[in-house]
């Protein structure tokens, strides 16, 4: 074993081979739906993503909207004019498909894979679901009850408690403050509410459909246009209002008596996808805590053993992007773990990173982008997110060029703005009786009860 690496022993990297550039064919149908077809050889599968804007109109409406959306995403599969629930499931399954439908504060997403012969029938069924979902009252009640139970289970997970608390603290009364709907709002959902929501919000204008597979773009676009022509509801997509940060000072502790770990979460704003500061922030994030080779992992995991998987990330939502730091640490080292995390943030903000750190982070981001778009499913999800954000597929290549040009000075500049501890809201879920006093030595502490155990 050696203390320093002798680079002469390490095989050099060969010449990079060119990455295939995805060829995205985009069309807007008469009903307003944007259709993007990406021909790509490989496994005989087609990946489908349909993204429908689904933000709450106002902060006041967000609770009810989130509750209804949570039930709608399961209930849409309960029946159409032509198929009952079993008929829908069997048709999908016979083509190797299983439609997953999910909501988040920005959108409703329909996603599936399928065998190549299934494209026509699956699109036909999708059109039925979009135009003729019946939301039968009895089965909707069953789905509503299950959603309420699943939310209760989710709320018992410390990671969910922490995410919910951080969002509430950062976003105040913006819709993004609500991560999971309240039980009583879920239990008030019925078939009428879902039919109304679907009519009002499941609209082709503003929505986008991405298909990836060994496809002929023109022929497939014609198939889509014909299958989804009946989806003709009119109206405007709703996007979330701008999300201002509250940035309350101090540390919020959510009390979880007896917890053997503390869930440490920091969050603040980050540049959006079109902000020229984004490439530098993504690189700063990697160097700080975005991958295993980062400073945070080396410090609080590999040197001190406080935690298993500390990490930081840059996350984009339609109305605001975030820089996030997470670490689940042993209760007895909660204070020291936060101290070391702040130390590493301060180091990013006040001193330059090394050239080797910057080059490593850059190559990793470029390599992992190539890996994640090397499968049909990965490419479909990546493009759906981009196109849903109003960006062209070429954004990927432009972003790669921008990453290549970022300097050490730029990383330090953006770190001082976005990675400074001062810019980040702090929430810690854990046993307040054991962690509040030591954390109080670092910053003012306030303690809230976990709503679920209260």
């Amino acid at each position, binding site marked *: 074993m050696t203390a320093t690496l002798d680079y002469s022993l390490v095989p050099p990297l060969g010449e990079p081979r060119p990455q295939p550039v995805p060829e995205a064919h985009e069309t807007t149908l008469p009903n307003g739906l944007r259709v993007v077809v990406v021909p790509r050889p*490989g*496994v005989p599968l087609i990946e489908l993503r349909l993204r429908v804007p689904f933000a709450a109109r106002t902060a006041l409406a967000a609770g009810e909207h989130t509750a209804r959306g949570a039930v709608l995403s399961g209930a849409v599969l309960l029946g159409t004019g032509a198929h009952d*629930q079993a008929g829908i499931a069997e048709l999908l399954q016979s083509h190797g498909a299983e439609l997953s439908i999910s909501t988040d504060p920005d959108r409703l997403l329909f996603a599936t894979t399928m*065998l190549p012969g299934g494209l026509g029938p699956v699109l036909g069924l999708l059109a039925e679901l979009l135009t003729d979902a019946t939301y039968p009252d009895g089965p909707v009640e069953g789905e509503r009850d299950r959603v309420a*139970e699943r939310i209760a289970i989710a709320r018992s997970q*410390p990671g969910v408690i922490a995410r919910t608390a951080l969002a509430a603290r950062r976003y105040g009364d913006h819709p993004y403050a609500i991560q999971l709907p309240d039980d009583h709002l879920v239990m008030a959902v019925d078939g009428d509410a879902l039919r109304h929501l679907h009519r009002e919000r499941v609209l082709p204008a503003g929505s986008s459909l991405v298909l990836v597979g060994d496809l002929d773009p023109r022929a497939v676009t014609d198939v889509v246009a014909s299958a989804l022509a009946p989806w003709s509801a009119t109206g405007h997509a709703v996007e979330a209002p701008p999300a201002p940060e509250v940035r309350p000072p101090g540390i919020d502790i959510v009390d979880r008596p007896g917890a053997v770990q503390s869930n440490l979460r920091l969050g603040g704003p980050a540049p959006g996808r079109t902000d020229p500061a984004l490439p530098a922030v993504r690189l700063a994030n990697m160097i700080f805590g975005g991958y295993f080779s980062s400073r945070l992992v080396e410090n609080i995991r*590999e040197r001190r053993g406080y935690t298993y998987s500390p990490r930081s990330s840059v996350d984009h939502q339609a109305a605001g992007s975030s820089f996030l730091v997470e670490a689940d640490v042993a209760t007895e080292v909660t204070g020291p773990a936060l101290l070391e995390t702040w130390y590493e943030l301060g180091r990013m903000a006040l001193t330059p990173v090394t050239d080797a750190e910057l080059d490593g982070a850059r190559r990793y981001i470029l390599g992992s982008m190539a890996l994640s778009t090397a499968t049909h499913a990965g490419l479909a999800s990546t493009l759906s997110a981009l196109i849903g954000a109003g960006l062209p597929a070429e954004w990927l290549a432009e972003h790669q060029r921008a990453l290549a040009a970022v300097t050490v000075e730029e990383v330090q500049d953006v770190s001082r703005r976005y990675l400074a501890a001062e810019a980040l809201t702090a929430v810690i879920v854990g046993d307040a009786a054991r962690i509040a006093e030591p954390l109080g030595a670092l910053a003012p502490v306030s303690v809230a009860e976990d709503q679920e155990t209260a």
Partner: protein
Amino acid sequence: MTTAGAELTLRHPVERFTLDNGLRVVLAPDRSVPVVAVSVFYDVGMRNEPEGRTGFAHLFEHMMFQGSANVPKMEHARLVQAAGGTFNGSTHQDYTNYFEALPAEALERALFLEADRMAAPAITEENLRNQIDVVKEEIRVNVLNRPYGAFPWLQLPQIAFDSFANTHDGYGSFVDLESSTVDDATDFFSRYYAPGNAVLCIGGDLDVAETERLIQRWFGPVAARPVQPIPATGEPLPTEVRTAVVEDALAPAPALAIGWRVPDPIGDFDSYLGTVLLAEVLSEGDASRLERRLVHDDRIAIAQSSYVGLFGDPFDVRDATLLTTQVHHPAAVPVDRVRAAVNEEILRVATDGVGADELGRVQARTEAQLLRQADSVLGRTLGFAAAELVHGRAELAGELAARLAAVTPDQVRDAARGLDPDTAAVLELRATGGRR
């Protein structure tokens, strides 16, 4: 729908050879994307760890990332990631694996890293103490600090099986972990990490002749060591019901897991394939038997799933293993009602069988899932490696879609006849600390 399985086999020819030190090598070239995956599978898993050393296979996996003869701590990660690659390792019941997915030009670097730690990992007191702390935090995140953390993978085997190999906690007790020594780790390495006890599998954008030359260069010098025969982990079939109740103070709602012994995944492969598809018939998607019965018709479950193999991969385990049905249900629904409904549905398959149309749909879905896994160079490479190590034939991974497509309704019916309620292991989780 049976053609794609054959296509998959044809598109990924497999080359294999063995080095003088005993290392088995499998190459699965596919130059469609400029990505290569490198994996090393060691034939030692949770089932092979000695008594008093629960969790040691997993702890040792962590030690393999602590540096090696020519690679200081943290540099393994940096050399892979700064080349644009990703890496990880994982500990399973019957093997431990290490893998990287990288741009094709970084292939030789990954071979250097894997060979260096196959020859001499940095097993030091400082690294061991550090990783014991990290593993304890991993166990707290995944088991102790969350609801349903050990359910059912750590709890069900305790009643489903008899031998230490099959029943013990593969994550490890804190007592065992904390008392682990450098000597234990050195012995474990010497015994189980010999080149002759490993499979090196590389897939993706590679030239076979050039890659063989690089493998000889880096792995050829690793000294051969004797390889111990693998003790069989199969055990006699159960003859009676075994039940247990566990209390979960963090869980808001109860849950039930039922485990049935299934045919030998290696020795009785054809019967086993029927069992694998039975699990899909029972629980895959809204069209499945248990989803319809428990969730939609009777409304007695919040969620259900059935799977073969402790971690849900039926093709990377040896005997003995289980088909597990797991149900989360509302507190107001008595557990006996859930259990009776599950048994009735299985009896219905055992008595009436499944229709060819129903099985055909399930086979189409299974094929799509296998293809999706094979679309990723890493997913495909890990599949080939596990098939080589566990089944002795990497090619099997490419043939699975076709083999599953050939399973008949009778095989699925026979598999259901094997799920006898009178020899099942039944684990009931009671939610004791939640709101209700």
